[in-house]
């Protein structure tokens, strides 16, 4: 009994629990449809690259994972969410493709400038977007939701303008590699892993994590204790923009084009959901990066599973919504208090019986 409590009380319990649940559903599905029971976990090599449902989830989940990093920091420091990340992804993709193809060109097979310049350009513009959000939130004290609403609605349109209202195709191999394969491993997996490792190392080796949490918990007290609260909040938004930029470039490379209206569509929701699923309070303060990352892949697993189960992409959001409701309820204080009271009552009843 007390062991069960210990496990359920753990910070990573929620995301891991959800992940296990998704796996269980997959196994049940495979068994029911007469496939090999562990189909989900099977990894093979086909056409010289890794293949399998698990690999697919890791691959497809890369963008959400990268977004989840920045979103975790933003939520922690400012007790608000950045709802512009999906649109900023699209903007970064558009700008990157525009740079690579040249303004006004709708399709190209060679690059108008070095790949690295185009990619960095896209990412840099996303950082500027992050800085804009950060400035509004940190220095002008605008509510995060309102501040990021501006780019949420504007970024996609700006991207379209940059591309002269075209869907720009960049059909060039080196660009395709970003969303394709590095040897036999899908490149996005590598990119996401690198991002996660870099941020994790920074958090481990510097006081950034302490600063962000401190500011998120009590901004005024943090300032008195010598922290530059506004600058830290600003920085988190820039990092979030950076992540959106990287994710945008990856997404564009996957389809060799900058489809302004579809790249990153609804990704902000997945990113926010990852943070919540990771056991982080959306009220700011303490955060848990590992949780968010697991959360991100769990969401991708849910999406992939739904598709595997034959749910159409139009209805999938309904299932996700149900999952959100459950998660939010589990985390809600009244529910927690209720569970605590129940277990206390049980303990009391037990104690009473023993006496």
């Amino acid at each position, binding site marked *: 009994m007390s062991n069960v409590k210990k496990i359920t009380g753990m910070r990573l319990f929620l995301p891991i629990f959800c992940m296990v649940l998704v796996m269980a559903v997959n196994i049940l599905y495979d068994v029911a449809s007469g496939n090999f029971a562990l189909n989900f976990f099977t990894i093979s090599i086909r056409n010289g690259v890794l293949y399998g449902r698990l690999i697919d989830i890791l691959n497809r989940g890369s963008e959400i994972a990268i977004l989840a990093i920045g979103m975790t920091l933003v939520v922690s420091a400012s007790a608000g969410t950045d709802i512009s990340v999906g649109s900023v992804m699209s903007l970064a993709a558009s700008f990157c493709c525009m740079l690579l193809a040249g303004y006004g060109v709708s399709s190209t097979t060679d690059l108008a400038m070095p790949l690295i310049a185009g990619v960095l350009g896209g990412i840099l513009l996303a950082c500027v977007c992050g800085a804009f959000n950060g400035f509004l939130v940190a220095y002008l004290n605008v509510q995060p939701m309102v501040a990021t609403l501006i780019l949420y609605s504007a970024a996609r349109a700006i991207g379209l303008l940059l591309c002269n209202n075209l869907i720009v195709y960049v059909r060039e191999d080196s660009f395709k590699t970003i969303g394709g394969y590095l040897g036999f491993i899908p490149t996005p997996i590598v990119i996401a892993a690198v991002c996660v490792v870099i941020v994790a190392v920074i958090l481990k080796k510097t*006081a950034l994590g*302490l600063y962000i949490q401190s500011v998120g918990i009590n901004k005024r*007290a943090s300032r008195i204790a010598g922290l530059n609260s506004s600058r830290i909040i600003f920085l988190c938004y820039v990092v979030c923009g950076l992540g959106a930029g990287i994710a945008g470039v990856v997404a564009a490379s996957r389809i060799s084009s900058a489809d302004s209206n579809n790249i990153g569509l609804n990704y902000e929701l997945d990113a926010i959901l990852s943070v919540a699923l990771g056991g982080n309070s959306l009220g700011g303060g303490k955060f848990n990066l590992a949780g968010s990352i697991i959360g991100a892949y769990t969401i991708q697993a849910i999406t992939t599973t739904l598709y595997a189960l034959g749910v159409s992409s139009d209805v999938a959001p309904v299932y996700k919504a149900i999952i959100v409701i459950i998660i939010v309820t589990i985390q809600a204080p009244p529910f927690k208090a209720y569970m605590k009271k129940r277990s206390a009552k049980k303990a009391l009843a037990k104690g009473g019986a023993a006496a």
Partner: protein
Amino acid sequence: MDNNVVLTMRGITMTFPGVKALDGVDFTLRKGEIHALMGENGAGKSTLIKCLTGINAFEAGEIHVDGINGPVVNHSTLDAQKKGISTVYQEVNLCPNLSVAENLFIGREPKTKLGTIDWKAMVKRSEQIMKDLDMNIDVTQNLEEYSLALQQMIAIARAVDMDCKVLILDEPTSSLDDHEVEKLFKLMNQLKDKGVGIIFVTHFLEQVYAVCDRITVLRNGQLVGEYPIADLPRVKLVAAMMGKDFDDLAAIKSEESPTFTDADLLIDAKGLSHKGTIKPFDLQIHKGEVVGLTGLLGSGRSELARVIYGADKNQTGTLKVKGTEAKIGAPIDAMNLGMGLLPDDRKAEGIIGDLSVRENIILALQAKRGIFKLLPMKEQIELADKYIEMLQIKTASRETLIKQLSGGNQQKVILARWLATDPDFLILDEPTRGIDVGTKTEIQKLVLKLAKEGKGLIFISSEIEEMLRTCTKMAVLRDGQKVGEITESLTQETVMKAIAGGGANE
């Protein structure tokens, strides 16, 4: 139940992870009595109160309230409220971004015939309530516009305005000055005459003897005893709380007054000010000097200190630190010049509630070192353990969240945070707020020790007595202006006179 008794608690037991906060505590409150609940920091006073009002769920024991059959278990403050138990908690827990009027009537708003909130009536009644307490403030302003002391008065006004049989005041006077305290005592006596039973928690012993009829003492979560006030003189009370004899009034300061030369000048402020809070002032502080800032509430004591530290931005004049002119844009600049500020509002500006005791202690030192020089965990642990030991911080472990500590122990953690930065110049704004008698003396001694080591200090306290014990010089403030300094013959009398507005080098 004795028909004179309004509340009995029997065998109340409650455990937090790692701490037995209450162990079979009994408490009895009679009609029309003011009952002091005393004990050291972390003795379990607030916990006992929270068990009564339903914030904490107790594991064993029974509560009986006059007029209600059978044992009572409250589930929330509102629940307790309905049973006639009105509470002012230790930490002001009103809504800073609501108006004073809204705060006074939250949860019991006057309604119009249509069932909507009757704003006009609310404002009018709020104004009346404030007037009855001699407080002329704009009740439509947000609560956060007002000082902590005023907020505390508003919290009290709210509790008192509700019809109750039991009124609980958990350290209501911690940020009030003598004048407000007097008003509060008058109010308490009126309620007492009406037959209300009042539970009064405080660390100011004089206040206990000024109003209380009976004392219950707790120690380490256990009941020491219940005494009529006459049976428990001050020394005995202190001994009961601490479990040993202790003279909290013994002189600690050496008699001769030290002299300072210009070479020792640490802080030299000329014409500093912040619009709306403090008018231009001059102040000099030397190495080894403890300067007290005194004045009525709202006189600008805290505000003066905040300008020096850069918590509020200075707008005029110049500040020299150790002889060189200093530009301070934010607290971190002041910290890099060797300053520290222990703010008076612990909850809003002191604790980082969801961080551990260790993290709270090292925070300022870490900020000073910079983001890239993370203190090694080993060093953090050593620092935390050192101050937990030195200041006798009562905590289940160094990794306990600071918000789970008792009020006085939270205060000690914030003090530790500043000691850890080893400042040359430390501003202590109400450093002993909510701290028990024994530790209070320890902190006063610590202040003198720091001064002896050559540090300069500003000491702000609502208790003149306490400043007299530590300060070498006092600056007097009135209406946001420094009106004088007292350097010689520091006595209760001269200081009181200066505060009220007569004499003192004006």
